[in-house]
């Protein structure tokens, strides 16, 4: 369980997150949406303890991350897998070394054993391990890099929560579909909570059962799809307007085709 209580965060004088409070239950699938620069990714960084809020509390499984020392934060991070924007794969390491990074650094397992597990994981995330296992990340497509990043996060500590920062941004429709399918598969098969930060509304709808909308650092909406449909908040309506228009176009076309 993750809970934000009146969290304020700023970079220098620039406020990023303003008095944000929400709660995410175990095994929930939540999308944090909002326009670019609204502070969505910062929320993930705060959950991971990479940043500390100036005010408020962040509670993960009953423990306040804000008051923890770095060593204690590491224990919390073991429960969390993070897929950074663009994957953030280590560019000097091969694909298998990236996927097995945590095991290489924190365990005494042999490289052969780690390689085996990395290959299994690559298979799980839908990649042809034989083809890419020794390649460097720069030789992979954007979609493949995201899936390798998901594999890396999964092989790290068997996480209970997965954080995805813009997992589909910049991908073609096929790669986007693959990544969404993988996120949903993880959520259902491994019963992992998913927190997805995105500004792609269609992708958020395909992944999440609950939605949080952030605008200019403030939480302007939190609720399920029905509540989102009914929401009349100006910021939410503005954010959803382009998507609603495109949906309306599709509906109109369907109606006319009938």
């Amino acid at each position, binding site marked *: 369980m993750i809970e934000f209580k009146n969290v304020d965060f700023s970079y220098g004088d620039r406020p990023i997150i303003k008095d944000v409070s929400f709660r995410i239950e175990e095994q929930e699938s939540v999308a944090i949406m909002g326009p670019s620069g609204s502070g969505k990714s910062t929320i993930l960084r705060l959950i991971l303890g*990479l940043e500390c809020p100036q005010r408020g509390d962040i509670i993960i499984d009953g423990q306040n991350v804000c008051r923890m020392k*770095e060593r204690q934060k590491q224990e919390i*991070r073991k429960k969390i897998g993070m897929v*950074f*924007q663009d994957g953030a794969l*280590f560019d000097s390491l091969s694909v298998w070394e990236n996927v097995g990074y945590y095991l290489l*650094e*924190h365990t005494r397992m042999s490289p052969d054993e780690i390689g085996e597990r990395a290959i299994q994981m690559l298979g799980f995330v839908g990649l042809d391990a034989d083809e890419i296992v020794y390649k460097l990340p720069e030789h992979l497509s954007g979609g493949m890099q995201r899936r390798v990043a998901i594999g890396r996060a999964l092989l790290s500590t068997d996480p209970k929560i997965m954080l995805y920062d813009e997992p589909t941004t910049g991908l073609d429709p096929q790669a986007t579909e693959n990544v969404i399918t993988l996120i949903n598969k993880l959520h259902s098969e491994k019963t992992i909570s998913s927190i997805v930060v995105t500004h792609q509304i269609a992708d958020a709808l395909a992944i999440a059962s609950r939605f949080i909308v952030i605008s200019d650092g403030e939480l302007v909406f939190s609720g399920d799809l029905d509540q989102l449909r009914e929401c009349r908040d100006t910021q939410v309506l503005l954010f959803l307007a382009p998507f609603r228009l495109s949906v309306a176009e599709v509906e109109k076309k369907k109606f006319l085709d009938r």
Partner: protein
Amino acid sequence: MPVIRLINGWLKHFAYESQSLFFFSLKMVRGIFGRPLYLVETREQMYLIGIGSLYLVVLTGIFAGQGFALAFSVELADFGAKNYLGRIMAISIVRELGPVLTGLMIAARVAAGITAEIGAMKSSNQIDAMTAFGIDPIRKIAVPRLISLLVMVPALTVICDAIAIFGGYIIAIFIAHVTSTMYWSAVHERLIFGNIFIGLFKPVIYSMIIAFVSCYKGFGSEGGTKGVGRATTESVVLSSITILVANFFITKVVFAFIKGYL
């Protein structure tokens, strides 16, 4: 007054940066004595810094030594004191020129590389990914570079000194017409504890300056590729200037303490 406000802002920024650099350096030094120690990365960095900079140091040493010997041999000839060329070469190269030239060359080559590499890792979130996987990026990235520089800069300085003195020997023999025995005995005469101590103490300080500044600038870089470029330039400029300033103060302080051994 806008000028006073500007100076005030600049001073505040300077104080803040100095403080941040100090605490960052402290973390790096603490990392040397803590666990885990990344030996594979350290060995790799030693190779990259040491072997990778060898050609640069050799070229710098040979030409600097020859140029220096050439200029001095002409001046000494006017006083009939060409036999002192070896003494002057030994003192100036071992105590001053060798450490400073090596420090500046390493600052230009290695500091730029370190800052650019760490900056690129930061802008692509690799540093954050490392932290998320429970790895301290300072221990993993910065400490191996500090240890490698601490070992390699003094070693490269010794090589630079030897090559520069040999460069002076070529000039002494073929241009200044000083006998080989005369040159080497004069060199040997001045290779005493005090000079060798200063010559090896300075590179240790320079290696720390290069490591602290370049890693600090790399970890602090912001603003994507443009920010990495800016940080790299700042890293080279700041390390080079600090080396030159430190050189003066080390000479002054050390000279005062071990005057009797010189």
